[in-house]
């Protein structure tokens, strides 16, 4: 059995800032983000790649950070919910649409939901309601019944804004 202190050095760009951290091989990316980097906007929900609360972007692709090893992110560029706007600054378009349309209640799923919506709108700038619901299949919300989330995304369709 390998020694638990067998550490690997990981250098990555997180929200535009370069960081170097030593981690155990078995450390999950979501734990690197939350515990080593202190970015607790990325949530751990199911921990089984079902719920999407841990969704972040690696090199521009939305992924579930509970099912990626931190060592695999060496050399990658990662964006979390904290990277979308500065505290106190104007909300990013997806965040503003969620706020405007009351697309959250408890808010636990929201950071992951927002990160998924960014990719959805990049892939399909003018999605139908079906496209939106299909595109959010990897994110579970237990409060809203999804209706206001769909409305928020519809409000962003074909606005031409960068999500």
């Amino acid at each position, binding site marked *: 059995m390998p020694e638990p202190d067998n550490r690997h050095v990981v250098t990555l760009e997180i929200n535009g800032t370069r960081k170097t951290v030593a981690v155990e091989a078995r450390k999950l990316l979501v734990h690197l983000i939350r515990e080593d980097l202190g970015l607790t906007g990325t949530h751990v929900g199911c921990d089984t*790649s079902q719920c999407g609360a841990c969704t972040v972007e690696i090199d521009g*692709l939305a992924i579930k950070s509970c099912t*990626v090893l931190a*060592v695999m992110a060496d050399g990658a560029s990662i964006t979390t919910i904290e990277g979308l706007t500065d505290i106190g600054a104007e909300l990013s378009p997806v965040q503003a649409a969620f706020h405007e349309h009351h697309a959250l209640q408890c808010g636990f799923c929201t950071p992951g939901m927002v990160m998924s919506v960014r990719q959805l709108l990049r892939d399909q700038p003018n999605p139908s309601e079906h496209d939106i619901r299909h595109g959010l299949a990897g994110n579970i919300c237990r409060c809203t019944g999804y209706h206001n989330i769909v409305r928020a995304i519809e409000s962003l369709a074909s606005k031409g804004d960068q999500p």
Partner: protein
Amino acid sequence: MIPAAFDYVRASSLAQAIDLLRDDPDGTKLLAGGHTLLPALKLRLASPELLVDISGIAELKGIEISETGIRIGALATHAELFASEPLYRELPVFRQAASLIADPQVRNRGTIGGSLANADPAADWPAVAVALQAEIEIVGPNGLRRVATRDFFIDIFSTVLEPDEILASVHIPRPRTGMHFIYRKIRHPASGFAVVGIAVGVRLQEGAVDEISIGVTGAANHAFAGQRASDFLIGKTLSQDNIEQAAQLLSETTECLSDRYASAEYRANLIRIETRRALFALAS
């Protein structure tokens, strides 16, 4: 959930990965997208000593279409197979099947090589690969070998891959003009895996079936080819009666799996229904 401790090496070439695998085949696991392996490690269903990360190996990447056939690198993700325009023009079934796998985030990580090598009885690509008459290219210490997909699967989570071999790529013959494929699945509402999935390719000549190929997943211990139903339909029209008979034949081909979610009888019925639907869609 935290996996048991293991060591990790990022392999930079196929040769290096094979060397590492050969050192300790039983204590080593290959890591690509990780979307089956990491959940298994978290549940401690597996406790390898070493993970060899093959996700950066260039030789395992790419989707290439040549005059003789199509080569898909093992590391092609479900999202890449969905998005590839050249592949879509050649075989739209890739986009159609990829859209039915899991969810967008999982599709960004999961790979076709992982899906085939893991041989989950309910995975989608095995049925599609069987119907496409794909060959799987395997690399090991003794070089390359190719295996027809229909001979690749042995049992639940079991394939002809030796512990020191790597699934390198999938090779598909160029479909003949007029050959159309479709993949249909009854999706498990929680896991998203196929309770039953049917991939069918048909080529009609003057109304009669000139070529047909069927792959089935979800129903049995591993994906299989629907040979009897194919043989039955060769030379026949896709009339309602012929379709019904072929679907019935296919549903009787195998002893189906039975679990808490679906009994063997229910799965056999789903084979019949999904085969009908696929054939009717291809007939029109």
